[in-house]
């Protein structure tokens, strides 16, 4: 009888690893908290930098799933323990699962923009997050101000909840910069006469084609990039938002009114308390899970039979997550063979 692998989280990492593990001949069970598989991918409209529809990637992941894979949605792990060579897990539904190995692919949470009080999310009418914007694009709705008008000037605020000691996250979320550039272009494509400003601290265009996207935003769409972190936002009585930044490249403070503010929310770690308590896994100061070795065991935990894939060990792009999921599947296979 073939061995069993439990995957926690049916996002990009979980689905990709599941597909590979099934092909390698293992029985896979996926436990998913929400009512559907795909994780955050369900919320995105188009992916950077190629602008490929997110649904296309999700479809691909689903196609790779083995029909015999057991997917349990709407369920949470309440208890989990490593017993000699097996792993036992209980679900909140009362169900018990035995497995030979477990893959944690629980992903990340979006930063709660309300914590950045001075930006006025859910207080000011015309402040939304990058995730809200994705939703608007995904649903094909028109991008308007709270009064239903077409915005004439939009500001995209980088690093919301990232690189910010004041909200307890000092790390970089990696994907927001390019998301901001992508969304700026998307806004311009929807509303060509709208002025778009990206307020950034550093533009981290580290990956292939990211720089091209940035140049496209500037040269083709005339998106303006202002180096300076938003310090304060005020709502004017007409609902527009006045923002104050320092234009750090000019060394001058600046204020401007925006019809709409988009907060580029970063990635934060999910709730890892169960894994910490029952599997004695470690988290870093950034609250993400820590793999056994940053270079050579990046998909293994220090606990025997427990593996990682995706953003549970830190912010990652979808490409990197998929690569890591495949690596984790092979690592698991290697473990189960011995």
């Amino acid at each position: 009888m073939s061995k069993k692998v439990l995957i926690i989280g049916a996002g990009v990492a979980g689905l990709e690893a599941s597909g590979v593990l099934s092909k390698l001949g293992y029985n896979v069970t996926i436990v998913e908290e929400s009512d559907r598989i795909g994780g955050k991918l369900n919320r995105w409209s188009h992916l950077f930098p190629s602008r490929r529809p997110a649904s296309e990637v999700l479809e691909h992941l689903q196609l790779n799933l083995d029909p015999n894979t057991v997917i349990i949605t709407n369920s949470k792990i309440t208890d989990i323990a490593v017993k000699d060579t097996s792993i036992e897990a209980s679900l909140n539904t009362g169900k018990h699962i035995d497995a030979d190995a477990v893959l944690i692919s629980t992903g990340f949470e979006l930063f709660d923009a309300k914590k950045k009080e001075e930006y006025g999310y859910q207080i000011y009418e015309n402040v939304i997050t990058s995730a809200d914007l994705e939703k608007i694009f995904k649903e094909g709705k028109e991008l308007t101000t709270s009064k239903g008008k077409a915005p004439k000037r939009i500001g995209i605020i980088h690093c919301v909840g990232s690189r910010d000691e004041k909200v307890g996250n000092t790390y970089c979320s990696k994907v927001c910069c390019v998301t901001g550039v992508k969304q700026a272009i998307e806004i311009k494509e929807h509303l060509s006469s709208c002025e778009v400003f990206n307020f950034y601290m550093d533009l981290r265009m580290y990956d292939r084609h990211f720089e091209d996207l940035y140049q496209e935003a500037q040269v083709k769409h005339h998106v303006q990039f202002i180096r300076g972190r938003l310090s304060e936002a005020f709502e004017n009585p007409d609902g527009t938002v006045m923002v104050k930044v320092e234009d750090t490249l000019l060394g001058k403070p600046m204020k401007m009114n925006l019809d709409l503010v988009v907060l580029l929310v970063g990635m934060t770690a999910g709730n890892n308390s169960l894994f910490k308590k029952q599997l004695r896994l470690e988290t870093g100061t950034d609250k993400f899970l820590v793999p056994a070795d940053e270079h050579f065991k990046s998909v293994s935990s220090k606990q025997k039979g427990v593996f990682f894939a995706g953003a549970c060990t830190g912010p990652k792009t979808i490409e990197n997550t998929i690569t890591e999921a495949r690596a984790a599947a092979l690592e698991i296979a290697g473990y189960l063979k011995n």
Partner: protein
Amino acid sequence: MPDFGYKISKDRQINFDENSKNLFAEVAMREPSVYRCISCGTCAATCSAAQFTSYSLRKMILLLKRGEDKEVITSVSRCMLCGKCQLACPMGVNTRNLILSIQNAIKKLSHV
């Protein structure tokens, strides 16, 4: 007026909404490669004029984008047009024509 012994300090803040961006629009129309600038500062670092003055093409581009025209007008006339910046620019901004365009645009919008 009584002598207070001090004056109201001038506001350094850029008031983006009140600043006209016409000069930048005129310049960008004449030299669209201005949009390629990534504010790296290579131009100012190699600039001969910048050895002696606060002249900086990088800064001028930003000032134009923010509508802070006054500073541009006082500063653009320091350029010797030698073209070092053009050789140095990593983004292919046509810097010499950019500077001439600024001068021409200033003249056209009769800022002088």
